[in-house]
């Protein structure tokens, strides 16, 4: 075995903070930026959570709360959806976890462009401020639904059609700018700033998920930008990109010839990859949680990487499965149903591999592990309902009903949120040096897991009855039985409980910062590099004088013959820390295509 000396790092110039302002406010340290991103995202997330509870108040007890009129209901729906998908999850996974974990897990000192990174956060904050300002403009925020379909989005008859839609589109444009700055940073860091020995195939799956999601984002957000800019022009300048001839409220408008369907295609060309932008990082993070706490290597690592890449690629050719009833060319149904169901295969493999990671593991049922298990269940549930919707003819009766609402909450509103929580419990000790309280954590898990299942599982059946989504009230429909109204009431109660319990979590975050148990540098006995930093929380520059050198992949748990049940990635091979000598484990060891050149640049 050749000994390779630590890489001579070209000394990166770190922007050393000296005052409070440069340390915590205008910081260029990726860890501080990550925390800024996360806290901002959680703050808007709480707004969106409150909005969802307002919706549930109306749906559970229609007419009882008279401050909720139809206008405000549609504004709640729209802001809730948009905030949750874009400003909470996208920002939290990529801006928060991406920023924190990429340099640490790869053994880098920081992102490659720290200034750009800082700028990215501030532009994101600006986009959030612009978004929130829509509550203060005349007419309030837009109520067009998070899909913002024209013509409705920019016509009278929709709340916020004067100003709300403009602030929304402006905010989205800013978000895209922020995301692009961050995204270029993440991609370049992953490609160029890994430490010696950290090949792509040795990266933890968290990084793979975040990396591929970032590429998806970079290439999908332009579609949102294009549709937003053109919609804005239709609204402000009176162009007819998406607007055909229209009679609105009895009056001929000055539009002609445009095609609203074009907007939908552009929107979903972004929108579908977007749902995987929030799913892939969750896939990655949960893989690491499962592996670490099951004390076992992730099962089928190569397949997992391949699946992430395949899902990413395929997600660009399934967009119109959101448009089966949109009046588009009906023959598209054949193409999109096929591609959509194909995507289920790599996703299914990921599910299998997660469960197989548990098999013959040595499972520690701590809080992050509980959330990871919760994720497997809710994601499987939500993914399988996706198969109903993807199969074009089955989607016809279900589209625009609560079945769809149940599908996407299960798969996006619950399962990645489970991963967010699990990951916060997992990495909080690294960020702050202290553990989160275990008892509060378990309580939080149980209420959230059972509560959300109680909210969304029955909701599918509302969809079967035919209860339509985006309805302010359901008055005397013959086909909706009285019992469905009661069901709605119960769902609302569950939602209120789950919503309230999030306060316990917040309390835990705050209280543990001062009073939590001291964590030490590697409380979970994990292998990945972020747990091997010389200080906890890691200091500016992360690694002290020399960068770590990586000698093994990220999943050396329970290696036969090793002294401990985990071998950190930077542990050199030795007798009590072996690497696998021969391939008696896998099925087929001849693999002509493997191998490849190494590179010798510093």
């Amino acid at each position, binding site marked *: 075995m050749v000994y390779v000396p630590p890489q001579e790092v070209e000394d990166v110039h770190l922007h050393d903070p000296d005052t409070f302002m440069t340390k915590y406010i205008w910081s260029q340290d990726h860890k501080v930026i990550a925390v800024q991103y996360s806290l901002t995202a959680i703050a808007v997330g709480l707004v969106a959570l409150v909005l969802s509870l307002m919706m549930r108040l109306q749906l559970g007890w229609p007419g009882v709360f008279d401050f909720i009129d139809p206008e405000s209901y*549609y504004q709640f729906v729209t802001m809730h959806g948009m905030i949750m998908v874009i400003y909470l999850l996208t920002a939290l996974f990529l801006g928060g976890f991406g920023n924190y974990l990429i340099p640490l897990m790869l053994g880098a000192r920081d992102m490659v462009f720290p200034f750009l990174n800082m700028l990215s956060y501030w532009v994101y904050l600006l986009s959030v401020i612009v978004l929130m300002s829509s509550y203060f403009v005349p007419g309030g925020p837009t109520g067009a639904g998070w899909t913002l379909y024209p013509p409705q989005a920019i016509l009278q008859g929709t709340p916020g059609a004067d100003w709300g839609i403009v602030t929304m589109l402006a905010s989205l444009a800013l978000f895209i700018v922020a995301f692009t700055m961050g995204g270029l940073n993440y991609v370049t860091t992953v490609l160029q700033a890994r430490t010696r020995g950290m090949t792509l195939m040795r990266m933890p799956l968290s990084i793979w998920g975040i990396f591929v999601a970032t590429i998806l984002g970079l290439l999908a957000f332009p579609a949102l930008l294009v549709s937003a800019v053109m919609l804005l022009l239709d609204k402000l300048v009176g162009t007819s990109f998406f607007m*055909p001839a229209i*009679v609105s409220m009895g009056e001929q408008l000055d539009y*002609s010839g445009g095609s609203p369907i074009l907007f939908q295609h552009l929107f979903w060309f972004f929108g579908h990859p977007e749902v995987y932008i929030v799913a892939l990082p969750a896939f990655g993070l949960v893989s690491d949680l499962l592996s670490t706490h099951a004390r076992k290597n992730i099962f089928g690592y190569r397949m997992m990487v391949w699946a992430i890449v395949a899902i990413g690629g395929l997600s660009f050719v399934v967009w119109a499965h959101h448009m089966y*009833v949109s009046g588009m060319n009906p023959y598209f149904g054949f193409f999109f149903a096929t591609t959509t169901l194909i995507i289920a295969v790599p996703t299914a493999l990921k599910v299998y591999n997660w469960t197989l990671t548990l098999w013959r593991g040595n499972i520690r049922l701590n809080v992050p592990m509980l959330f990871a298990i919760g994720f497997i269940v809710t994601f499987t549930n939500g993914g399988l309902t996706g*198969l*109903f919707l993807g199969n074009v003819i089955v989607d016809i*009766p279900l589209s625009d009903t609560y079945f769809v609402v149940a599908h996407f909450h299960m798969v996006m509103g619950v399962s990645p949120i489970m991963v967010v929580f699990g990951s916060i419990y997992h990495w909080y000790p690294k960020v702050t040096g202290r553990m989160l309280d275990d008892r509060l954590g378990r309580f939080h898990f*149980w209420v959230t897991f059972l509560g959300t299942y109680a909210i969304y599982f029955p909701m599918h059946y509302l969809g079967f009855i*035919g209860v339509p989504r985006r309805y302010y009230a359901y008055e005397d429909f013959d086909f909706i039985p009285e019992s469905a109204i009661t069901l709605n009431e119960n769902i609302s109660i569950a939602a209120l409980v789950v919503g309230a319990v999030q306060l316990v979590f917040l309390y835990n975050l705050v209280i543990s910062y001062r009073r939590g148990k001291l964590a030490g540098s590697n409380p979970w006995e994990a292998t990945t590099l972020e747990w091997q930093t010389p200080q906890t929380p890691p200091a500016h520059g992360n690694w002290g004088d020399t960068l770590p050198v990586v000698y093994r992949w990220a999943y050396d748990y329970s290696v036969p013959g090793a002294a401990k049940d985990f071998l950190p990635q930077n542990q050199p091979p030795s007798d009590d820390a072996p690497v696998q000598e021969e391939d008696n484990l896998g099925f087929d060891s001849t693999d002509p295509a493997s191998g490849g050149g190494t590179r010798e640049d510093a």
Partner: protein
Amino acid sequence: MAIVIVLVLMAVGSVLFHIWTPWWFTEVASNWGAIDELIVFTFAITGFVFVAVVLFTAYAIYKFRYKEDRRADYEPENKKLEFWLTVVTAIGVMALLAPGLAVWADFVTVPEGAEEFEVVGEQWNWTFRFPGADGKLGTADVANITYDNPFGMNADDPNGQDDVLIEDYEVHLPIGSPIKVLLRSKDVLHDFWVPQFRAKMDLVPGLESHFWFTPTREGTFDLLCAELCGVGHYTMRGKVTIESEEAFKAWLAAYPTYAETVPAPSDTGGGAASGQ
């Protein structure tokens, strides 16, 4: 260990909930009963997968819970197993897709000789148009819409003169023969949906969409709008009554044709005045 019990209860409970649920499709009233069957079939496959995954997880957690003196296996991959899982999944997916696409092929091929009628949506009302004696709908365009010509009929299209215009929230249709529903919107997106028919489709301003079905059960059904169309979306309601051919004819006869609604002969060209 609570998690193991909970997972088992969840798997079993979900199945029991499904079996005993009082909330299920309303009785079908069109030829698209095949969709219901497909859904039941999809439920069987996906339900099986769900229960299998959850129970397997529960069992694994139970069996391999943490013990100080045990080591987990070291098993980076198992190509054979992964290969077979892929194959099985692919087969499962194809089993779902193939019948689905077959029914979709039916759905997109409107039968020869289907009766046509047109649904015209606006914020937040439904109106309808029937082809009249010649069996052909005349062309119509939003740009032609005026106070006197709410349907935007093309005044010089001969096919349109005998079209029957129904400015009413209720529409009647004859039972038993295929019907092609043409959909048009004056302002924003709407969606024509009667849950009992299973089928639905958007009304899109700037193009004409369609779908077809054969009513198979008499009765009066709720018609609702299933695409967000502004604050009044949830109030955009209507009724569809399915009845015998004779009853339908009698009902239709009570409504005026386009020619009858045109105020004065000198005015016929007026429809072309557009607001552009």
